[in-house]
C-alpha cells in the first residue's frame, strides 16, 4: 500500500519533468549531447541578457523562441567554422590541421609532423651522406690498420646472433670502416647498437649511419665507423 503510494507520487513528479525535457531538450540533456567543452559557449549564448535566462517552471513561449534563435545562430556560426576548416584542410592536403578555440594560440611549428620539413631534412642529410661516401671512397688504404680494425668490428658483430646474419660487408681503409647491413629482415636489434658502439669505441669512437633504399625496395643501413672524432672544445675558452 505504502509502496503504491510512493510510486504514484513519483510518477506525478516525473510527468512534468518528462514534458519539460521533451519540448526543450533540457539543460542537462544538451550538455550531455554537446560535450563538456561546449558548456561555457552555451552558457554565454543563453545568459547574454537577464531576460534570456531560463530556469524550470519560469520558462515562457517567448523564452523558448529566443532560445531557439540563439541555437540557430550558434549552428550557423558552427557551420561557418566547419566550412573554413574544410577549406583549410583541402589547401593543406594531408597535412595536419591544428584546431584551436577562441583565444588559444596554435602550437609552435613541430618538424616531426611537418612533411615538408621532414623532406627537407632528408634531402640535406642525403647530401651529407653523399659527401661521407665520397670521402670514404677517396680514403687511402692502410693494410695493417684495416685488417686489425676489421677484425675488431667482426668480433663485435659476432657477439650478437642477429647482427652477424644481417651484415653484408665490412670494408676498412686507413681511418674509416664501412659496414653494410641488410635491413629487410630483422635488421640490427635496437639494443645492440649502443653495445656495438662501445665495443668498437677504442679504435672507432665515431659512427654515422645512413639508411638507403634501392630501386627494388631493399633497405640497407650503411655504418661509417671512424677513428676520427670531433674533440669537444675546451669549455674554458
Amino acid at each position, binding site marked *: 500500500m505504502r509502496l503504491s503510494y510512493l510510486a504514484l507520487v513519483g510518477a506525478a513528479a516525473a510527468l512534468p519533468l518528462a514534458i519539460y525535457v521533451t519540448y526543450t531538450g533540457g539543460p542537462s540533456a544538451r550538455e550531455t549531447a554537446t560535450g563538456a567543452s561546449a558548456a561555457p559557449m552555451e552558457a554565454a549564448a543563453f545568459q547574454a541578457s537577464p531576460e534570456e535566462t531560463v530556469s524550470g517552471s519560469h520558462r515562457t513561449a517567448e523564452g523558448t523562441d529566443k532560445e531557439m534563435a540563439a541555437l540557430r545562430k550558434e549552428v550557423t556560426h558552427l557551420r561557418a567554422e566547419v566550412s573554413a576548416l574544410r577549406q583549410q584542410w583541402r589547401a593543406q592536403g594531408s597535412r595536419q590541421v591544428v584546431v584551436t578555440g577562441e583565444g588559444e594560440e596554435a602550437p609552435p*611549428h613541430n618538424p616531426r609532423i611537418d612533411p615538408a620539413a621532414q623532406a627537407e631534412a632528408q634531402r640535406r642529410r642525403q647530401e651529407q651522406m653523399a659527401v661521407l661516401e665520397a670521402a670514404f671512397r677517396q680514403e687511402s688504404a692502410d693494410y695493417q690498420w684495416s685488417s686489425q680494425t676489421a677484425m675488431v668490428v667482426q668480433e663485435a658483430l659476432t657477439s650478437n646472433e642477429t647482427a652477424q646474419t644481417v651484415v653484408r660487408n665490412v670494408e676498412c681503409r686507413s681511418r674509416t670502416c664501412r659496414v653494410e647491413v641488410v635491413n629487410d629482415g630483422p635488421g640490427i636489434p635496437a*639494443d645492440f647498437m649502443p653495445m656495438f658502439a662501445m665495443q668498437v669505441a677504442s679504435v672507432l669512437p665515431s659512427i654515422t649511419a645512413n639508411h638507403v633504399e634501392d630501386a627494388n625496395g631493399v633497405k640497407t643501413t650503411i655504418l661509417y665507423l671512424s677513428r676520427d672524432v670531433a674533440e669537444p672544445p675546451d669549455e674554458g675558452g
Partner: protein
Amino acid sequence: LFGNVQLSNGDVMKSVNTLGMILGVGMIAALGSAPEAYAGVYSNHHGSICHNSFAGADTSLNHMANGTQNPTTGIAYATCPLVRATTNTYGALAYLDIYNAISGTTQCTFLSYDYNGTLLGSTSASWTGTGYYRFGLSLGSGKSTATSNYSVVCTIPSNGNILDIDLYEY
C-alpha cells in the same frame, strides 16, 4: 649564436637555417669539426634520469639526489635520455660530470636517433680513474636532425656515479 631562436613558421626556420649553415661552415672551418663550446642552446640534465639499460637489472642502480650510482661490485649499463630544447640541426655536445669512488672505467656513448627510430650516429669516450671527472662527447651535424632524439648510454663501474649531463645543441 643560434640560441633561443623561436621558430614560428617555415620562413623563419629557413632563414635561421640558412644563417646557421653559413655560420656553421665558417665555424667548422675555423675549429675543425668541433663547434664552439657555449654557442649552442644549453640545458642541464640531472644524473638521476639515467635508467638501467636492460630489463632484469632494475635494482642495480641507485637514483640519488646527486645522480645515479652503481652500488654493485660489477659494471652496470645505464641509459640517460636527454630532452632537447631546440630543433637546431648542426650537432650537439654532451659534457658528463662523473665520480668514481674507487678506481674504475666509465665509458659513455652519445647517440642520436631520428624520430622514426633509426640511428643517425654516435660518438664514444671513456675515462679511467678515481674521483671527479668531466668529459665531453661531440656529435657532428651529419648525426643530427631537427627531429632527432639524444641519449647517452654508459657503463658505470662499481661505485661509479653519473652526476649530471650538460647538453649544447647547435
